[in-house]
Every structure is written in C-alpha cells, then in structure tokens.
C-alpha cells in the first residue's frame, strides 16, 4: 500500500502535528508515529531524521526520562505526580488495602550506590516512625526491580509552592484574600509545621529540606510536611547523580549553604521554615531584590530585608520573630521549633514574644563594615584605625566611619562630594603596563564602588576618560589615544577597574623600550574628565562616576612590577638581575571566595570569575611579576572548570604586599559540568572548587625563575559566589 486511505490525515497534517507536539515539549515516540501511519512511513522517517537533527541537544544529551513503570511491588502505578531531586513521585494504588498512595522512587542514578541506599533506607525508616497530623505519613518502604521506593499517604492538594505560584500569577490559591486574614493563615500554617518539626526533632529526625514544595495542604486545609528526612546529605549525593545537586538553595540555612562544619539540627529547619514563611507573607525571599553583595552578606550575616518593608501591615512582633529565626548563627535562632511556633502564634495574637524587638541599624553597620573591609583589602591595611595613610606618596583619605555608615545608608547630606573625594584615591596608580606595542601603556583605574553602584553598573555603560600625562614633573602632554574607552571590569570584591589604553609620547615610550625607565620615575596622569558614557538611558548612574576635571593622579614607577614581561624580546634587559633584590618570595594568600559575575561587553556576553590574590614579598622592592598557572577544578570529578595563565601585576604596599586581581572566563560552549556550575551560580548557590596555583613556565617570564621565589603549588578550596 503506497497511499494512505483518503480519510486518514495527510502527511502534511501529521508532520504539522509533530511540530506542534515538539513545541509543547512532548517527547516523540518515533515507533508509535511510524506504526500509526504506515502509508507515510518512509516520508515520516525522513521527516523525523531532520527533526532529530534539529532537536539534538547541543551539550551531552540527558538520557530520556524513564518510562513510567506500571507496577512496583504490589503497587499499581496510576500516573506521575511529579519529579524532584530525590526521584519521581507516582500516584499508585495499593490493592491489598484498597487505598491510593503516593510512591516516591529513588532516581535510577542513585540506585547503584550502596552507601546511599543504606542511608536512604535508614532515613526512610526513621521517617516512617513519625506519626503526627502535620507530617505526611510514610506507610512502607520497599524495593522492586532495584528501585527503592516509599509509599506515603496521598495528599490531594496544592503545595505551598503551588499556592505561591498561583498567588504570584494573581490566581485564586484557595487561601484568604484579605491581607490580615491571609497573614494569620500563613503564620498559623507555619506554626503548625513548626509543631510538626518540634515533634520530629524530639524523635531525633531533622528534615533538612523544609521548603514550600514540601508542605502540602490537605483537603481540610491543614499543612502537612512531606519528604521527611529524605534530603540526604547534599555533599554526599551531589556527585553520584552526575553532578546534579539536590536541595533548594534558596531555603537553605547558612550552615547548609556554606557547608559549614556545623551539625545540621533543629535550628536548621527553623531557619528554612522561617524563609518559607517569609516568602508566604511577602511573595519574595528574604534576600530577593537585595543587591548582590547584600545577598552574600545575607547568607553570611543572616541579614535580610525586614518583613515589614514588604508586608507593612505585619505586626512588629512578627518581624522580630522572623528576624530571630533567620539569624545566621544557629545559636542565636530559636533553640527549637516549639519556641518558634509559640512566638509565631503570639506575634499575630498580640502577645509577648521572646525575640528582641530593638531595631538596630544592623544593615548599616554591616554595610559600613564591608566598606571598611574593602578598603582594608584594597590598600592592604590591616589596621583599620588610621584615617589617612600614604602609598607611594599619595595621601589617601579614608572617610570617617560615621560617614561610611551614612553613605551606605544613603542619608549622607554630602554623599556626592564624599564619594567624589572617596573615589579619587581609588584611581590608583596600580598598574601601568607595557605590552607588545612599544610605548603603549595601559592604565587600570581602580574604583571601589558602593554596592548600589555595582547594581547600577549597566554593561552597556562604559566610562570615557580624557587624560594628560607628564613625566617627572615635565610638561603635560596628551597621549596619542586621547580618548580612552574605559571598560568596567570586575577586579575583586567591590573593586571596579577601568582600563584605559593609550600610547605614550615618544620620550617615555622609547625610554621604556630601551629599558632605561628607572626606579622612581614619575608619570603623572591628569584625568581631565572621566565620566560614564551610556548607551541605555539610566539617569541614575549618569553622574555616579564623574571625576572633576583637572584632578591629578600620579603613577610612579617605584619598582619593576609595573611591566609585564611576557611579550618582550629575549634580549630585553632584565631589571630583576639586580643583586640587591631579595629573592625570597614568601607567601601567597589566596582568597577563600571567588566572585562570579556575568558581564556583557563589546558584543559578547561572558561569565567570569574574579578573585584577588595577595602575594607577600619579604622586601618591599621584590616585586617581580609572578607567572602563574591557576586552575579551578571540580573537587569531585577533577574536571577543569576554568583556568588562566597569568603574570601577576601589583603594587607594593609598604608592607611588601602585592595584590593581583585575576579573572577567569568561563567558556561559552560549556561542558555539562560547567553548565551546571553556571546554573548553580546563577541560582545564587555557592559552589566549592579547588583553586590551584602553580608556577607557569609558559608565560615567558625572563628571569629569575619563579621557583627561586616560590616553588610550591598552592592548592586550596574556594567558594564561588555569584555577584549578580
């Protein structure tokens, strides 16, 4: 039979319905399609072969989802209820008891891990012992065809996650509409979950993954916690599922998020429940819409936006209760879920709560601290007390702590001027470097920006500067490239670098090329105008970075560190042959954090990792650039996630320290593991990677060999955190 019967759909209709199915995200069953239309078999085969080509996943394809089994043990599978990190949940029927149950099946990837299975079973058995009206009961635990599963009560209703997304979409979620009534409902719901947690904790079971998706509302409107104890140790499982990370970072407690060596206990659940309640009340997470640094701070400091800034009608007491429950230090939170429940109820009923209600200006203090910290790292100061100090003869004024606080708060009456003065020293004489073109210099102007500025930093905005130079106090001259586009680059915590490249006049350029540029020679750069140019309309940031015309900054060349040697000819005189130089490089301080940032410059988008390294030299003038190879590896798979070969550049502080900003860019065509890293980072979930720093022989550092200073390889674990 060559032609389909006339009453069956035409080839073109079949093909179009296939297209429609693909758009709907349905998986195609080639065999079924071909079997259903025998008359069009060859045409459809051809069509499907192109479909396969066009649908091919660019990175390694995920295996097709397992087909739904029809039976597991005695349970007859009716349908799939959902998929989650810990497996698939089916609706099933248990014929012996004539009841419907929810079956949770461990994902296949985990099924071969004996250690995990043992653990899974132990957790399951503990959870199965729990009997509480606020906990979805686990009926049994079984194994069929190698797939371990649980049978649980089937709760017919939305989860809090479902309610949240309905409310966000403005749909009826079956919850009170009146704000006060809704708040009372939300708080009571959370209090009931806290009751359930208190009971479970008393039985020695910690939930560890309290989140909206794990709270189901039954047909009586009462909340029930599910997946009890199923959240296995994240670190233990993350590898076994091909790098898949389970859990809900957004609801994680700081001790979970940072993998602190802190036992997860009742207070971890209190924290996650508090996040859940906060989200119920405000439809947002405690740290959402916070600036990037604020998010880091939030995780590290427990700081969050006060409840009433998003739910103004909430009682002050409720805000205080949440504040206490969201404390970073477990010891500062409610000691147990029962105390949390008690306070929650008291807060809405107007009773007394145990949480302190004094409103400290915590936010400010922390912001100010952060600024101080940035200052300290920027200028390599350990002592925070001096208000002014010198680096290479340039006096740097540090704003008074009160000013910093007011600045952070945005309440400083002369904020603009203060920032102006504050920025000046930031135009640091850190790096002037010569590259392959004779006499070309590249200036890096470093600015430490208030975090809000970082937020405003639009990738389409770049700074335009006009500079004049003078050498050793001589006449001012305008370098050949008079207009420099300064591209914002993230250099490290809060450090924004503006790069400018320009050509020096012949005198200076030739001197540099002859290598006769001596210690102590001064190049003074006058920034005539440095302001943000913009492409997009963003009036708020227009003047944020304007430096007044005529401001003078002096770059001095106290040492050789200012030059990058990598592209110089072989006979380039090495200033490092100076016998006076103490060759003992002592230590390199590596950061424990690497910042991740998305950027979009010059027509491409990129994801870069930035960190600041600090090298300490024994003597002030030992400032040879160090050629290092830095690698970031996944600790488990040992896969190389990013690498960079780099010659450090830095300026010495009086204490002989050099700090170097360094960025890795993540490849556009990422491997699956890199993709996951990106997704994690984008989701705000910190990841730990191993940073190794070793001497590089590839970067043609003339001499002396790096090993003369520092022979070892540093290997350290760094946490990668997203900045925005």
């Amino acid at each position, binding site marked *: 039979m060559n032609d389909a019967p006339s009453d069956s759909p035409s080839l073109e209709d079949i093909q179009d319905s296939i297209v429609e199915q693909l758009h*709907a995200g349905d998986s195609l069953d080639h065999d079924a399609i071909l079997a259903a239309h025998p008359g069009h078999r060859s045409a459809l085969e051809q069509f499907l072969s192109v479909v396969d080509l066009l649908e091919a996943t660019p990175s390694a394809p995920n295996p097709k989802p397992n087909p739904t089994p029809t039976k597991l043990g005695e349970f007859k599978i009716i349908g799939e209820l959902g998929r989650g990190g810990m497996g698939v949940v089916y609706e099933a029927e248990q014929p012996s008891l004539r009841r419907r149950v929810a079956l949770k099946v461990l994902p296949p990837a985990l099924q071969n891990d004996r250690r995990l299975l043992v653990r899974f079973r132990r957790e399951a058995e503990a959870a199965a012992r729990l009997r509480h009206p606020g906990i979805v009961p686990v009926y049994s635990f079984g194994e069929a065809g190698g797939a371990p599963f649980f049978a649980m009560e089937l709760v017919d209703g939305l989860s809090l996650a479902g309610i949240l997304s309905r409310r966000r979409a403005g749909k009826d979620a079956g919850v009170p509409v009146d704000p006060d009534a809704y708040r009372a409902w939300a708080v009571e719901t959370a209090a009931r979950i806290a009751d359930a947690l208190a009971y479970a904790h008393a039985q020695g079971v910690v939930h560890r993954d309290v989140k909206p998706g794990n709270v189901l509302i039954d047909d009586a409107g009462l909340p029930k916690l599910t997946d009890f104890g199923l959240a296995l140790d994240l670190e233990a499982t993350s590898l076994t599922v091909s790098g898949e990370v389970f859990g809900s970072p957004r609801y994680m407690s700081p001790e979970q998020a940072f993998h602190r060596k802190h036992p997860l206990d009742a207070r971890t659940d209190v924290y996650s429940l508090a996040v859940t309640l906060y989200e119920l009340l405000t439809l947002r997470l405690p740290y959402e819409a916070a600036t990037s640094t604020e998010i880091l701070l939030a995780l590290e400091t427990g700081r969050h936006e006060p409840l009433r800034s998003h739910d103004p009608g909430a009682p002050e007491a409720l805000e205080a209760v949440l504040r206490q429950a969201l404390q970073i230090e477990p010891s500062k939170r409610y000691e147990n879920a029962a105390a949390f429940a008690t306070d929650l109820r008291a807060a809405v009923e107007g009773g007394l709560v145990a949480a302190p209600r004094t409103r400290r200006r915590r936010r400010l203090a922390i912001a100010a601290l952060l600024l101080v910290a940035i200052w300290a790292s920027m200028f390599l100061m350990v002592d925070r007390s001096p208000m002014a100090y010198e680096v290479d003869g340039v006096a740097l004024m540090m704003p008074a702590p009160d000013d910093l606080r007011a600045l952070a708060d945005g309440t400083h009456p002369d904020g603009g001027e203060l920032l102006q003065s504050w920025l000046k020293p930031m135009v640091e004489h850190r790096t002037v470097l010569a590259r392959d073109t004779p006499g070309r210099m590249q200036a890096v102007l470093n600015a430490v920006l208030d975090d809000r500025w970082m937020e405003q930093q639009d990738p389409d905005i770049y700074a335009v500067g006009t500079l004049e130079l003078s050498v050793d106090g001589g006449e001012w001259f305008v370098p050949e490239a008079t207009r420099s586009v300064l591209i914002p680059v993230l250099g490290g915590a809060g450090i924004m670098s503006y790069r400018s490249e320009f050509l020096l006049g012949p005198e200076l350029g030739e001197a540099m090329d002859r290598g006769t540029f001596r210690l102590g020679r001064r190049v003074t750069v006058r920034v005539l105008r440095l302001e943000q140019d913009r492409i997009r309309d963003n009036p708020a940031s227009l003047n944020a970075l304007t430096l007044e015309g005529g401001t003078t900054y002096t770059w001095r060349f106290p040492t050789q560190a200012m030059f990058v040697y990598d592209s110089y000819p072989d006979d380039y005189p090495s200033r490092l042959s100076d016998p006076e130089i103490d060759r003992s490089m002592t230590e390199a301080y590596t950061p424990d954090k690497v910042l991740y940032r998305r950027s979009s410059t010059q027509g491409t988008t990129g994801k870069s990792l930035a960190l600041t390294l600090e090298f300490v030299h024994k003597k002030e003038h030992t400032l040879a650039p160090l050629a290092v190879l830095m690698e970031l590896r996944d600790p488990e798979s040992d896969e190389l996630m990013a690498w960079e070969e780099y010659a450090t550049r830095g300026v010495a502080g009086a204490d002989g320290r050099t700090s170097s900003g360094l960025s890795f860019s993540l490849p556009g*065509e990422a491997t699956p593991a890199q993709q996951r890293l990106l997704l994690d980072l*984008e989701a705000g979930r910190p990841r730990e990677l191993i940073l190794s720093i070793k001497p590089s022989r590839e970067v043609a550092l003339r001499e002396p060999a790096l090993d003369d200073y520092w022979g070892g390889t540093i290997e350290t674990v760094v946490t990668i955190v997203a900045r925005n």
Partner: protein
Amino acid sequence: MSDTQHLVEAARGGDREALDELYVRHQGRLLNYLRASVEPGLAARVAPEDILQETLLESARKLDAFEDRGPTSFYRWLVGIARFKLSEARRAQQARKRSLAREEALDDSPAGVVTSPSGRAMRAEDGAALHSALEELGGQQGEAVRLRYLEGLSLAETAERLEVSTSAVKALVSRGMAGLANGRLKTDPPHSG
C-alpha cells in the same frame, strides 16, 4: 496539564531536574532557531551557543514571570527571550563598532568573553550549515521551516508572515524538511545518542 506545564510548575518550586528536563526538550530547537537567525556578521562575534546559554539562564531567573497560555506557550516564551538576547547582542555589536579603542584594549580584558577563534570557526560551521541549508531551499520553504518549526509561530501566524494559506504553510514545511533531509543539511548532530 501537559508535561511541560508540570515541569514548569516543578521548576518554579525549585526543582532543578525539572528545569533541566524542560531545557532538554527545547534547547536543540532553540539553538537551531538562533543558528538560523544569527547573521554571519554577528556570528563572527557571538556564538549562537552563547546566546542560547544566556537565554536559558535568563529564563531560569524569570521562570516565575512566565505566563502559561497553552501547551506551546513555554517554547514561544523561550523564543521571545532568545529574540531579545539576539537583539541585545546586535545592539552591543553596533555599540562596539562605534567605540574607539576597543579591539586591543580587550585582548587583555580579564572578562575575556570573546569566543576563541577556533571555537568560533568550529561553531560557525554548524550554524552556517543550517543557515545556508535553509537559504538553499529557496523560495519560501526555508522561511517556513524557520518560522513554523524553529521559531514556533502558529500556523496562522506563519501563514500571515508568508502571505500564504495555512495549508500552504504545511506543504512548505513538509517540502522544506524533505529538502533538508536530502543532503542539504549534512551537519551531524554534535553528539549522537
């Protein structure tokens, strides 16, 4: 509810696997939409893969804002984001052309985001293959495949764009796909299996 709707719901609840699954179901087509849409000049600077990644990341961030308007609306939403990312990339490229000191200043940029030349060439091949295969189809077939299949327009919308009837769209897609099968698109899928 369809699979996609379930997955979206789960992904909104923080389920990473659901999110991955959503992407698996759509990203191949989306990438090919981008490949078919990125003009050679732009492709030299930005890989469609980069735009795809940006699109997926953006969609993950904005998942809560997705409004479900029927089974195909998720893919169309993704295409919408991709289109936006595409125009951003074009704008940025324009801006780049305008700026003065750029190329060399960038070569040292730690934010070095430029796709490596070899990587660019490699990917440009894939992208160009599809791009030219669709062009070679001639007439409206290539455009029909691009609009109806890759961009996810409805039959009616495609018909309106091409100024033909909906049944003509089906026929154009059918013949276009057959044309692609007949050796005009020789690119092997990047990973088979």
